[in-house]
């Protein structure tokens, strides 16, 4: 798996919980001294070891850690690129939900080796959605919960977003849109200013 995923976990744990915590997790995961490179490939089990290591060291459920990772990816200024690339998904939060179906293709467009979750959106009503995703890492749906909650904030939308279980290797999320323009939302310029 591309190092980007491990790198994200490393940055998240390091920035949120400090260098010592990250070092402890790395030891448990058997990758101390490793500085993950986003564009290099690492064995899949390392990612799993990192997640389990973090759960052990932090004494928190895996789901919570993954959800926090999702929030971190969107809301932390040091990974602004992720938030920006997601905002290209559309002008509103509902546009973004629909664009999640293209997530995999968009990822490959940027980096051919990048494997992102396969996502399907079901629109039950104009305010009610079910999003399902498939990915080799158990609990990926929780990352999406954190990520989409943070994106809803970013768009200024008021949503009720919950993990709705795991079956047939699919994680399901239920999304209730309460108010599409509840708050101002964060500003987004399509083109970054130069210099």
């Amino acid at each position, binding site marked *: 798996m591309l190092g980007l995923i491990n790198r994200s976990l490393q940055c998240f744990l390091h920035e949120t919980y400090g260098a010592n915590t990250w070092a402890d997790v790395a030891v448990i995961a058997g990758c101390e001294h490793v500085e993950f490179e986003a564009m290099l490939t690492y064995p899949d089990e390392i990612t799993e070891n990192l997640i389990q290591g973090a759960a052990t060291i932090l004494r928190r459920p895996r789901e919570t850690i993954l959800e926090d990772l999702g929030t971190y990816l969107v809301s932390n200024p040091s990974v602004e690129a992720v938030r920006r690339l997601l905002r290209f998904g559309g002008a509103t939060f509902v546009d973004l939900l629909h664009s999640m179906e293209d997530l995999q293709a968009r990822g490959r467009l940027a980096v051919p080796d990048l494997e992102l979750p396969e996502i399907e959106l079901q629109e039950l009503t104009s305010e009610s959605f079910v999003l399902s995703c498939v990915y080799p890492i158990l609990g990926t749906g929780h990352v999406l919960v954190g990520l989409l909650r943070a994106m809803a904030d970013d768009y200024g939308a008021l949503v009720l977003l919950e993990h709705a279980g795991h079956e047939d290797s699919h994680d399901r999320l239920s999304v209730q849109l309460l108010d599409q323009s509840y708050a101002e939302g964060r500003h987004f310029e*399509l*083109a970054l200013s130069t210099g």
Partner: protein
Amino acid sequence: MSNFQPKPFFSFEPASLARLMPMYIAVDGQGLITAVGTTMAKIFQSDTLIGKEFLHVFDVRRPAGIVTSESLLRQVSERLKLTARSQPGLSFRGLGMPIVGQGALINLSFGIGVIDAVREHHLTEADFAQTDLAVELLYLVEAKTAVLDALRNLNLRLDGAKKVAESQALTDPLTGLRNRRALDQILQKFEQRKADFSLMHLDLDYFKQVNDTFGHAAGDHILKTFANVLTRVTRSSDFVARVGGDEFVVVLPQKREMALLEKIAERIISEISMPIEYDGNLCRVSSSIGITCTQFYQVPNLSDMMVDVDDALYASKKAGRARASFAVGDRAVLGSIITRSVRKRPNLTF
């Protein structure tokens, strides 16, 4: 049979047309602008386009020669390339079609300049037609930039790591012997511990001729052969380094008898003096050697020893090569291979 009769003409409210094509411009039969899409209006901000002559607002770069409204209306359905007269950096491409009976409808896009235009005019997704891939293009540019940044950083880190590794390397890549840095380290350790040792400085005679005659590959082969000889003749506890092109140093720990050192030197010289075959050619080299030992000094001192062992090597060269010299002052020459020489130093014990 169906009685369905398609209506040949459509009409749109300007607002509907603007949603379909936010960058359209409609001109009448005189070439005056009658309506524009929302994005066009946004780009030209305060200038009201309505009522102006199209060719006053735009410079038509392609097709060539469009300077009158008649020629514009005549050629509007060819590939159009325009720049805005008020903003020369702003260019468009597009196509027009005659509106039946009255002027033309011209639909434009930014082409490759889209990123600058978006930045300049703070355009949003809503400013583009639903079918326009401009936002995808912007996404791609940004994603690729992020990837390139990551790769560039990776390259810088790898390059830095390589430089560090090289600067810390202790091995000579050609021969697999230790290098000068390793030698410096080991000699410093000997000096710190005030331990006895002997020092041999060797170089290859006629190496330059072999290199010049048979090429660098032959030269490399000779160097590797010499490295093998040195490794074979010395003990595993001895330390063998290549410190320059054809320059080698052997450090022999503990006190060794001069006779024993002579024997080692003799074996080295006789082994390397055998013709070496390379690529069908026989290469002949030999070795000149300088030797010094800590026991030659009342107070051994590394920098003196280095100078003396170098002088002893030079003495061997001067005395006709293929021999070894001890740096023990004015001792007589012994044997045909081994020369005893060279220097007078006040602190010599011999």
